[in-house]
């Protein structure tokens, strides 16, 4: 209830994309940007475009395994990001992701096309990851991926390291460890929202649809999560 109440005060506007961190998009990843655009249009309530994956889904249902392979290939990087940032463990991520695609394949006949395939499979991945985290509970060993060296050319990274001495002194691996530790301290639901919004640049409406909560709840969860992260990463502040 408190979350819902605060959601009204936290709202930044009626947008689903205005608060969107556009700079977080990798220009090279055209699939991501296309998906994001499609999701935005859906959430904005504009005329809904046909699902770009409809023909692949249809072919898969007709027994064409290569069509489903294409879907796997298309969505693995993005879903990997979701599961990995939720678990902070690459082995767990691999296992969960395998299960996600296996379940999607088994349940494909139940996909009615009411939402896009992207939203549907994202919901499956989110639910399975949250269930996995409940079972995993306290066993939180981190097993992190390497950082792409392209980070050194990232505008945000350059600005942050220029402004903040602690970040610069910490070094990349230390910074990565701190960020992951802070993320793991968040509750599963808060971490899911932060992952989808801050890291994967999804609009509020799309997150709400996937998590089956209201947009206000998404915004309030984000607000609380950012407050907590600020507290835990406070020593990285600019002196």
């Amino acid at each position, binding site marked *: 209830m408190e979350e819902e109440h605060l959601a009204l005060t936290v709202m930044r506007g009626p947008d689903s994309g205005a608060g969107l*961190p556009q700079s*977080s998009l*990798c220009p090279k990843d055209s699939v991501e940007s296309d998906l994001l655009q499609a999701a935005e249009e859906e959430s904005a309530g504009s005329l809904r475009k046909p699902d770009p994956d409809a023909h692949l889904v249809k072919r898969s249902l007709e027994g064409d395994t290569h069509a489903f*392979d294409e879907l*796997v*290939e298309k969505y*693995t*990087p993005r879903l*990997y*990001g979701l599961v*990995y*940032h939720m678990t902070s463990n*690459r082995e767990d991520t*691999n296992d969960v*992701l*395998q299960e996600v*695609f*296996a379940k999607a*394949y*088994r349940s494909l*006949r*139940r996909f009615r096309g009411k939402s896009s395939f992207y939203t549907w499979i994202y919901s499956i991945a989110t639910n399975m990851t949250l269930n996995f985290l409940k079972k995993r509970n306290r066993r939180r060993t981190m097993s*992190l*991926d*390497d*950082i*792409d060296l*392209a*980070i050194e050319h*990232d505008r*945000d*990274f350059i*600005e*942050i390291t220029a402004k*903040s001495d602690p*970040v610069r002194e910490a070094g990349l691996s230390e*910074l*990565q460890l701190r*960020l*992951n530790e802070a*993320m793991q301290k968040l509750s599963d639901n808060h971490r899911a929202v*932060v992952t989808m919004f*801050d*890291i*994967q640049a999804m609009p509020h409406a799309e997150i709400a649809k996937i998590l089956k909560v209201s947009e206000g709840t998404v915004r309030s969860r984000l*607000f609380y999560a*950012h*407050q907590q*992260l*600020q507290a835990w*990463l*406070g020593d*990285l*502040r*600019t002196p």
Partner: protein
Amino acid sequence: MDSSDDIERLVRLKRYESPDKEYFDRFKAEFRERQRMGICNISARQLLLERVTVWFSQCTLAKCTIPVAVMSVITLTAGWFFVSSSHSVRTPEIAMDQTQQSSQDPENSADRAQDFELQLPQISSRIPGIPGQPSNPTSSQASNQASNQASNGTKILPTGIRLGLREL
């Protein structure tokens, strides 16, 4: 870090944590492998359950079964209540009519009371309306009376039933 925006930008850097590109190729191969393994290792029960689930999700008739069953039960229950309630409403009216008539014409009412008196034959006696049955020697009087009444066809059963028994 002095604002939420800075935190967002810091967290956003996590997207640079990613596996090497070969991982995704390996992932697809592993997925295919697991699928094949899964097909081989699937138990009969799981297979049956999965097929039933798919059949149920596809079959529109099966989907309609539960609502149709519920509607039938509701309709039957409502019909039964309606019938029973209509009986319970009509009974006092009949009783009222009878009392009114009896109060108006006491002699006729006594005759009618006799008309409606149901005199069932004894178990040992012959069934009324069916000829050729042996009479019980121990209760000859009663059986004679019963047979007479049966042959006359009066004062034993209502007219409709009497007619039916004659046909027999």
